[in-house]
């Protein structure tokens, strides 16, 4: 009897060590805030819940930054971290919030679009919980999130996700994927409420252009590209050709499939007047046949297994010993956004968007991503927002 008590005591002790050690790291990750400095161009900051019901007080609510020019013009919505394990969009969005100054028109930026997913992790794949970017004033630490919203914020998953309103049957897990829940509804699952709120911004503010900034595997054909539906494809093609000619990087155009529902590049265009663009930058970290999923792989994109596959022509992007570093991925997003603004302004001069302060591809590659981040310790306190 005494021996049994001893065995159970030891087992419970080991159990508590595992529970506390693992649980405390996950708890700290879920409650770690990333400071973002509202730059000189930010004129007001709102919450996503201001535009859609059912989000207030939940972990799905998130900051929406408005950068309004002195002169009226067009409007653009930039969304990042739709998938919170694709950080190139988030980093480009933070660069824009902290540096852009709009001369004409309005920029609306949501850096943590699926805020709940940014509080989630993929422990089974050994994801790092954080990543750090070197800046001119130190290291800026970000949460590494997951593709889908946290089950703590939306649970249970259905057996099959029936998309609203098309009733297409999607994978059960896509009910927590904010790039499958467009156009959303005010009384649906929480991630449909998130996309519905964004649709409301676009409808109420008469947004001209919407950007959904992502990263995609190098072994996936829809990578290193602009995904655009019929109504956006002309501008996307012109932007793609121009960045190739002027800035020297490839970013081909993929047509948005009409039969695949729930995606931003499909539903935004079908349910509003806005022209949607989904930007994909190659992110080797997400490929399956890589080495360990480390912070280093996330940032430099160097992997010997992918290099071997590239030599066998199995990848959809050029790949060599230099990998696919975060600077290239973030720089591509910045340049493609600026180029789409320029192409749109050519045909719609009265709705043009003129912005200063957003670096282009070569500048981000040359200076590094962190060069554009402001030190929150030196910023005015009321200009720092915890994301």
């Amino acid at each position, binding site marked *: 009897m005494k021996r049994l008590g001893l065995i159970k005591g030891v087992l419970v002790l080991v*159990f508590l060590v595992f529970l506390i050690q693992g649980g405390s790291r996950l708890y700290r990750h879920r409650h770690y805030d990333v400071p973002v400095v509202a730059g000189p161009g930010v004129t007001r900051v709102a919450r996503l819940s201001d535009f859609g019901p059912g989000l207030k007080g939940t972990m799905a609510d998130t900051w929406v930054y408005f950068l309004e020019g002195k002169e009226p013009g067009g409007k653009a919505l930039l969304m990042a971290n739709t998938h919170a394990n694709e950080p190139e969009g988030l980093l480009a969005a933070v660069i824009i919030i902290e540096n852009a100054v709009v001369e004409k028109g309005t920029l609306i930026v949501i850096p943590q679009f699926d805020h709940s997913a940014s509080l989630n992790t993929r422990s089974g794949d050994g994801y790092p919980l954080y990543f750090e970017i070197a800046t001119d004033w130190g290291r800026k630490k970000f949460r590494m999130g997951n593709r889908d919203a946290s089950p*703590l914020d939306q649970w249970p998953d259905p057996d099959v996700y029936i998309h609203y309103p098309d009733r297409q049957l999607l994978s059960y897990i896509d009910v927590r994927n904010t790039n499958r829940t467009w156009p959303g509804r005010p009384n649906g699952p929480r991630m449909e409420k998130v996309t519905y709120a964004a649709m409301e911004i676009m409808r109420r503010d008469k947004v001209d252009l919407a950007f959904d900034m992502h990263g995609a595997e190098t072994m996936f054909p829809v990578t290193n590209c602009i995904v655009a539906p019929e109504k956006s494809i002309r501008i996307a093609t012109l932007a793609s050709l121009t960045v190739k000619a002027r800035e020297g990087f490839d970013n081909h155009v993929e047509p948005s499939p009409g039969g695949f529902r729930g995606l931003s590049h499909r539903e935004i265009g079908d349910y509003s007047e806005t022209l949607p663009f989904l930007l994909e930058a190659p992110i080797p970290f997400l490929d399956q046949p890589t080495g360990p999923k480390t912070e280093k792989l996330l940032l430099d994109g160097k992997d010997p297994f992918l290099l071997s596959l590239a030599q066998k022509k199995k990848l959809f992007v050029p790949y060599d010993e230099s990998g696919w570093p975060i600077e290239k991925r973030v720089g591509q997003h910045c340049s493609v956004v600026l180029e789409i603004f320029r192409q749109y302004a050519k045909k719609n001069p009265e709705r043009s968007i003129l912005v200063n302060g957003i670096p282009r591809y070569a500048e981000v590659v040359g200076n590094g991503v962190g060069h554009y981040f402001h030190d929150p310790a030196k910023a005015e306190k009321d200009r720092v927002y915890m994301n």
Partner: protein
Amino acid sequence: MPLIMIFYYLITVYLIGLLAWNFLREKKKIEDMAMYLLVLIPLLLRVLRIK
């Protein structure tokens, strides 16, 4: 919190109770005791709203 989510938390608490009871009742098999505790971890992390 939606009603269905509340039900799922109640189901989780019920499962935790079952596993804890089985752990306490187990007298011989050490591997079964360890297994009950191992299975408890994700359920407890969910109820504590950690993971």
